[in-house]
């Protein structure tokens, strides 16, 4: 069997309080990968090709979202994996954890409405240079649900300039037509930022939930291209 045909193995970490871990496993399997459950207290990533930090309320999100999970034992392995160039995707709480861990710039804070919000949103792809956007072009939009109480992306002025300047924004909340404006900003994120990547492009996080938009039996499938990109990324052996 050639390398390109083997089934990619994608790990999903379960922290205490992770909620969308089974959903992420279901999504990657639906897309043709093998889902590998990873446990927060383990130190071994079981040789997976990519790591997903799923949504939820790890450790209750007490103190701050993601603040306690970043100290979980498996995070050392995740960080080492990322340092070697391994693809890491943080979804919602996973995004919050990656920011808290300093693996992604910025932070997530309470929605400007002060309310939890669960609804489908359109997000515009800003770069093809992430593990989940390789099959998408900048300017394309996908419809994916959000569900979070603390999804307002913030960063200090200097850092924001760097994030924008270095092209680290991966997704912005937009209309289906790609128009980015306040009316399409569900939580008050600066610059409508819905997701960012790191400098080397192998770590990416976003608030919307692509794993909840892959199963045509349940609803729309705007998340499929993100997972298809991830499978292609690991299949290419990057």
């Amino acid at each position: 069997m050639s390398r390109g045909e083997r089934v990619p193995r994608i790990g999903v970490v379960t922290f205490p309080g992770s909620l969308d871990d089974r959903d992420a496993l279901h999504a990657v399997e639906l897309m043709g990968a093998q889902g590998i459950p990873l446990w927060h207290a383990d130190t071994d990533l079981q040789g997976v090709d990519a790591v997903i930090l799923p949504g939820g309320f790890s450790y209750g999100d007490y103190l701050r979202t993601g603040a306690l999970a970043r100290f979980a034992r498996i995070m050392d392995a995740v960080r080492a994996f990322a340092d070697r160039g391994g693809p890491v995707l943080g979804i919602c709480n996973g995004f919050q954890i990656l920011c808290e861990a300093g693996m992604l710039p910025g932070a997530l804070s309470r929605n400007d409405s002060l309310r939890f919000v669960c609804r489908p949103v359109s997000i515009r792809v800003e770069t093809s240079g992430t593990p989940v956007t390789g099959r998408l072009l900048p300017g394309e939009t996908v419809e994916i649900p959000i569900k979070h109480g603390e999804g307002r992306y913030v960063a200090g002025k200097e850092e924001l300039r760097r994030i924008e300047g270095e092209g680290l924004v991966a997704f912005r909340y937009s209309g289906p037509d790609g128009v980015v404006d306040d009316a399409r900003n569900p939580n008050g994120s600066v610059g409508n930022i819905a997701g960012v990547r790191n400098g080397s492009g192998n770590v990416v996080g976003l608030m919307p939930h692509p794993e909840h938009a892959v199963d045509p039996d349940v609803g729309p499938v705007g998340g499929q291209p993100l997972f298809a990109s991830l499978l292609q990324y690991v299949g290419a052996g990057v």
Partner: protein
Amino acid sequence: MAQEQPLHRQLGLTDEEFGDIRQTLGRDPGSAELAMYAAMWSEHCSYKSSKVHLRSLPTEGSAVLVGPGEDAGAVDIGDGLAVVFKIESHSHPSAIEPYQGAATGVGGIVRDIISMGARPIALLDPLRFGPLDEARNRWLFEGVVAGIGGYGNCIGVPTVGGEVHFAGPHSSNPTINVMCVGVAPADRLVTSAMPVHEGSLMVLYGAATGRDGIGGVSVLASATLEEGAEASRPSVQIGDPFAEKLLIEASLELVERGLLEGLQDLGGAGLTCAVSESAARAGLGAELDLDAVPLREAGMEAFEILTSESQERMLAIVSPGKLVQVQAVCERWGLQGVVVAKTITGGGLTVRLGGEIVARVPARSLADEGPVYERPSAPPADLAERQEDDPTFATVTVKAEEAFFSVLASPNVASKRWVAEQYDAHVQHNTIAAAGGDAAVVRVDGTLRALALSSDGKGRFGHLDPYLGAAHAVAEAARNVACTGARPLAITNCLNFGNPERPEVMWQFTESIRGIADACRAFDTPVTGGNVSFYNESGDSAVWPTPVIGMLGLLADHRLRVRSGFRGPGTTIYQLGDTLPELGGSEFAEVVLQMISGKPPALELAHERALQQLLVDAAAGDLLVSAHDCGDGGLAIALAESAIAGDTGFAVTLPADAPWYVSLFSESASRVVVSVDEARIAAFEALVARAGVPLRRLGETGGPRISIDGALETTVEAAREAYESAIPTLLDA
């Protein structure tokens, strides 16, 4: 003055009940014993006012695996799977502290489902508040919704439905009901039929025990709230959804690995209830050691530990040989699991603290031998007068268009998006349809099956005729489920009433039970369990008699489920069922005529059943594009909602032989608006004829306009704006 009362009365026990306790024990009870009896014999735990009447509900059916009496009922859905579901009220705690009251309500009902060994897969929240123009009602509404979201979103169980209603009597008495649905392999249900052995251990796991909700059962849940109820705030429990999530996973792992003889959640009456019920069900006694209970605060007294309602605790019954494995599972999930009791022969429950015996009572006397009352009942004195003033014959001066927008934007009818968007509807990746349609549709993981879930209460109808109000609630819940194509299987109910010591409340209660029983028999949807919530009143103002029905329906193949919205142009719109001049208790009468009076619409149970069967058959034959119940607001609202949901306009004509306000706003029962593709019309009409259900062709779908011939011309966009903006606008006031 309260402090001059004897202790038993302060704890809510009557002199007669105190006498019964003395007779049972053959001596005066100690204070810890008295607190245990007070908690267990409270209305909330003992059902003492309702028990005799609940017996008349139909509880048996071929699909029922577990009926009333366990933590939740269970129904067979085939393929070796069982659905476990239950509804409960958390109204009293929510009236005092809306966020925590509602949050802990969610926590409690979820633990009822896990204690049956089932994974919770869906939550529904039927809520009733006073009008939103009062600031306090807005505070309660916003707090309750935030609390449900704050807890439910954090435990990984999707909130997929419910209802929100507003009515004057709920101003100081919000009615907060929570329903949870779970799924388990049928052969792995944890029920009292499982053998518990002498010498088995009771392992308390989860959160530590604090002074939360001390007296919550006897003081909070079982007495009418007085002015200044805020003073009872310390009695309110605080929820920790993170702990609950760990509790769910740990409990299910214990069940899956076959490590348990029994499982009980700690709810009302806390440890007392869990230990005494577990022992009594097994025909055993127990020795309970309070020194082993992990405490959050130092210096707690026996009665406090015994009746604390600290959240997120479970009690597992374990054979000694499996203790190590059980504790390892708890530890893996970061929970403390300690042995607090063991079962013994005989029926005695002995409780020790600091080496001393603080209570020694028969377990059954707490759990099963509480008082039973047949309270006097009489119809309200003003009932006839209320029914006499029938809005059907009122003079209507308003224009149709104005009436349409008034009813559409009435908070009872208007979009509840503001609420639904605060709940995670997606987690567990099986939600096919959440709030907004007729019933929520949730796929059973890994199968083609789906559950259709609806919760319905008809308070205004109940106020005018409690028998009909209750029967309508069952009918509407079943119809909502049938509109998706699912077959109604069984119900759970939450009976929300005022003070049962008042004869008119008791009459409302018995009439409602009669209505539920008749409807459930007619639809073959037995009652598998539920909850009675009395004392929903303050001063002279009681809530309307509002049984809330949680209906479970089953779709054999979710791909054949029917949507509520129209789908593009060119389909034919029909009304199934007849419209009669029945405006009594309607939304139109309240909003446009300012009348809450008359008789509710009649309900022919056989017609209703035929309609539901027709909907199920039509869906199975893939004959329907859409189906939507004609409920609150009548035909005009059903049509508008289908148009808004599907972003598709329509043109219909009304019958010439009735005034427009009857055609548009009558709330006659057993009616559904469907749309059908050209190619299916012949088959559909033939099926309807065979079923003997009245059918009227109304018109066609298409375009951006809403056109009701001769009465109303507007656009889908204008209707959507009115429908969506109503509740946010009221909240911004």
